[in-house]
Each structure stands twice: as structure tokens, then as C-alpha cells.
């Protein structure tokens, strides 16, 4: 393989010395400092940490919704200057527009990305394929208010995937769901990512979710002035099966490592707070 291309792919997302400080009524608040992270093409990265550790802040920076006070963020060797459809976001609360049907919600994104180059029929086909991918073809003409929380989140994922983003950014996408629905959606996501080979950055506070889904777990220290405490490579073979992994020694080891970081080494700060 071409050496430079390989290098590019290994540093598909490149975060260098990023610091984020917010101006608040009580004075400046440093949320993040000294963030250095690379994400390879096709890699699945989980950001994990206690509440308020700035993991969503970091995700918003990659999305381009906010700009860092210092440092640079690159995606495919280009500086991230603002939000765009090549870095699609799945929001925690799905953020579907309640006055549009599931179809229209997805079509809105598809239209924006592909309308200049493709025909109406192709756009329609893309939207329908995205709905089929998350198993929601029957809900095509339903509005978000008429479907369950899990289905809404699936539409949110479909909307993001339909734009064929270079990077899929997910902000606690399953946080608001019950445990059973969450497990089912995690399995679906595993299958979808396997199929699409997407690069994914996902914020989570669920240890099992992080280990099951990721190639790399980025563990963050407690805020304020949070930074990356440790990066854990999860070298479990794919496709992964949650039932088989439950007793797998390597899985248990990774799980223990994350729990150890979160509760033994970073736990005391929260107790003190």
C-alpha cells in the first residue's frame, strides 16, 4: 500500500493540543486541555468518562459545532472549520423534526448531500435504503411522535448514515433507552458498521457498550480541565457477539481495565466534589 495514503488513513482524524475554555458568568471555565488523539479510517472509538468530563465537548469540536480556543483538529488532512454533512452527528435526544415524517427527516439530509449530482429517484432510493438498513421501512410515513424512543434513535442513525459521512459522531446515542432496546440497537450498530466500514466516534458512559463496540477506548479524566487519561486498544475479533463475549477472558480483562480507570483512579474526584 502507498505509504502516504496509509499514513493519512491512520491519522484520519487528527486532534493536536486542543484546549477548550468557555466564558461563563463566573469567569473562564477550562473544559478540556492538552487533547491529542488520532482516529484511523474505519476505526470505532469510544470516549468514556464521568459526567462533566468534557466528552461531549470534544465530540462537538470534532463535529465543528464549536471551535477550540487552542489547538487544531484535522479531518482527512483538512482543518475542521465548521459543521458539515461529511461528519454526521447522531444526537443524544435524536433531534428529529417532529413535523416531518421519518422519510422526510432522512430525505432532508440526503437531499442536501446528493441532490446536486443525483436524480430524484436516486435520492428516494437512498432514503428508503437507509430506512431499510435500520429496519424501519414500515414506519416510513410515521411522524416521530408516533414511534417509540428506540425507533426514533434508529431514524436518527439512519439520517446520519444516509449522508454517507466520512465520520459518524454519536453523542450517547442509546443513553435515553431502556437496557433491552439499547442492547438490540448496539447489535444493529455493530452489524451496520461492519457493513459500511464507517469511522465512528461515540460518546458513552456505559462500560459494556464501549468494550463491545470499540476498537479503541479513550478514557477521560474528571473535569474541569479534563484530558485524556488513558487509551485502551480493544483487540477482540469481529464480528463480536455479546453472549459469547460475556465469558471471554480478554473481554473481561478490558472491561476490568475501564472500570478500574473510572472508579478506582478517577472515582475519588467525584466523591470529593
Amino acid at each position, binding site marked *: 500500500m502507498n505509504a502516504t495514503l496509509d499514513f493519512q488513513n491512520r491519522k484520519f482524524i487528527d486532534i493536536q493540543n486542543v484546549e477548550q475554555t468557555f466564558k461563563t458568568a463566573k469567569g473562564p471555565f477550562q473544559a478540556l486541555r492538552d487533547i491529542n488523539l488520532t482516529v484511523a479510517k474505519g476505526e470505532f472509538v469510544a470516549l468514556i468518562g464521568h459526567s462533566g468530563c468534557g466528552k461531549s465537548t470534544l465530540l462537538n469540536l470534532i463535529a465543528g459545532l464549536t471551535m477550540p480556543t487552542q489547538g487544531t483538529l484535522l479531518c482527512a488532512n483538512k482543518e475542521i472549520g465548521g*459543521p458539515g*454533512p461529511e461528519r454526521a452527528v447522531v*444526537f443524544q435526544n435524536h433531534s428529529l423534526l*417532529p*413535523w*416531518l415524517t421519518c422519510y422526510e427527516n432522512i430525505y432532508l439530509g440526503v437531499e442536501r448531500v446528493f441532490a446536486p449530482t443525483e436524480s430524484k429517484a436516486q435520492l428516494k432510493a437512498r432514503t428508503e435504503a437507509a430506512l431499510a438498513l435500520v429496519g424501519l421501512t414500515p414506519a416510513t410515513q410515521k*411522524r416521530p*411522535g408516533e414511534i417509540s424512543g428506540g425507533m426514533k434513535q434508529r431514524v436518527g442513525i439512519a439520517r446520519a448514515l444516509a449522508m454517507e459521512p466520512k465520520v459518524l459522531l454519536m453523542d450517547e446515542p442509546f443513553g435515553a433507552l431502556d437496557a433491552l432496546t439499547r442492547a438490540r440497537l448496539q447489535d444493529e450498530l455493530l452489524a451496520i458498521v461492519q457493513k459500511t466500514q464507517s469511522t465512528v466516534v461515540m460518546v458513552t458512559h456505559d462500560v459494556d457498550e464501549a468494550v463491545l463496540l470499540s476498537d479503541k477506548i479513550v478514557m477521560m479524566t474528571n473535569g474541569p480541565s479534563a484530558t485524556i487519561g488513558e487509551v485502551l486498544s480493544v483487540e477482540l475479533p469481529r464480528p463480536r457477539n455479546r453472549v459469547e463475549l460475556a465469558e471471554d477472558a480478554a473481554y473481561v480483562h478490558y472491561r476490568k481495565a475501564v472500570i478500574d480507570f473510572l472508579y478506582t483512579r478517577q472515582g475519588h474526584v467525584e466523591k470529593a466534589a
Partner: protein
Amino acid sequence: MVSAVFHSPADAIAPASTSKPIAGPAATPAPAASRKAPPRQPINLARFWMRVLPPLAGFGLLVLVWELIAMRSGGGFPAPYETWLQAVKVFSDPFYSNGPNDQGVGWNVLSSLQRVALGFGLAALVGIPAGFAIGRFEFLARMFNPLISLLRPVSPLAWLPIGLLVFKGANPAAIWTIFICSIWPMIINTAVGVQRVPSDYMNVAKVLNLSEWKILTKILFPAVLPYMLTGVRLAVGTAWLVIVAAEMLTGGVGIGFWVWDEWNNLNVANIIIAIFVIGIVGLILEFALIKIATAFTFEEVKS
């Protein structure tokens, strides 16, 4: 609608039945409802009475007070029954026309409604886009907020002379007054609605990189619609309040002018009829707009 209000005292004489009215002898309209009540289980009946009795007692009280005032005024103030007979006469031919100063109550109401529709329509045409602009761009908000705060509390009738001066006519001046008093609630509510569009929706717009036109039609407009319709409702309410006063001053054909004209004729029964008509038309406008607003309000979806 009109007859329903006047019905109660007349009907009251007919079926004297079981229930005991709470508000004294004149509150007899209560039994009138008994003809609507088919035999049901006792619990349902109790709830039914709870819904029907209090409003009827309220109307009964109104009629009682009215009757007492009429009795004490010594003939100057028409009694309810007298007014009822006059109302039947007025409404038997609502669309007659004997020249510009003597027209049926139907024509008067219609020409008032026409003025309100014109003034209000123009206000919506200007106010709603202005509200969007003020809500979307902070510069405009800071520019216009002081002006709106200054002009909004001004009594609508204070604008009438300006209208007469500029438009040199009674009718356009009345329309102008409606315009100026109904524009504020629409501007303010629309602007507030735009500022309160959930940031999640705006983040979606940013991530999808939607054009300003798509943001307006797919996100802002539907999200703001409920706020806007509240503004429209307030505006119509104000407009209907103001038109009566404006027409009293400007003359012509209209329900407000009719009130003033009947006062000059010392026909108090007609004034009372006009008061009921104004109230009922206002109620219908309000009710229709609430129906429209609920039809266009989307459930706030939270998973």
C-alpha cells in the same frame, strides 16, 4: 349562537322539573337542560349536572341582575324579555338596507369584520416577517426592541387622528388603527418563537448544512407556528376590541357605529343586543383561532 344566549330566560318558563336552582327564583333556566338529559346511571347524571348547572346559574344571575336594574331604572332600561322581543325583530331581517345610516345588524357586523380582516391582514403581512427577522438577527432585535417597547403601550385610539390626517378618510383611518394595534402581538410572539427554537433543531440544521431557505421552511416556520398563532389570536382579540371604539368615532356602517347610532336614538335595547353580538362574534373568532392553533401545534418530542 345568538338565540342560544337569549333562549334561557324564555325557555325557563316551560319545563319546571326536579332540580332545585341555586341562585334564587330567577335562576329557573336550569331545568331547561333537563330535556337534554336522557335517563342514565346516577354517577353520570351528577357529572352532567355539574357541567350544565353552573353555567346556567351564571346566565341566570346575569338575567336576574339585569331584571333588577331594569325594574329600578323606571323604564329607561329595557328588561330582558323586552330586549328578547326586540332581538327577535332585529334578527328577523338582518340584511335590510335603507341607505347608509340605516342598515341591518348583519351588514353592520360584516362591515366591521371586513375592516378587522383588512387591518389585521395587513398587520400579519408586515408583522410576521418582521418578527422572523427580529428573532433571527440580533442586530435587528436590538434596533427595534426599544421602538416596540415605546409604541406598544399606546392606546390604539390615539393613532386614529394620525390615520385621519394621513389617509384623509374615516374608513382607511379605522383600518389603520386596527393595523397598528394588532401588529405588536404578532411581531413580539413571532420573534420570541424564533428565539426559542430548540438548539437541537438548529444543530441539525448546522450539521446538515441546510440553506437559509430550508432552515426557514423546514425548521423555523414549523417550530415557530404555535407561537405565531398565539400572536395572531391576541391580535384578532385586540382588533375586535378596537374596531367598536374606532367606529364609534369614525361613523359609517359597522357594529360600533350602530351602537353609537342607537344611543343617539335612545334605543337601549338595540345597544344591549349589540353588546351580545360583539361578545359572541369575539368568542367565535377566538374559538376558531384556538382550533387552528391546536391543529398546527406539534407534540414536543422527547424520547
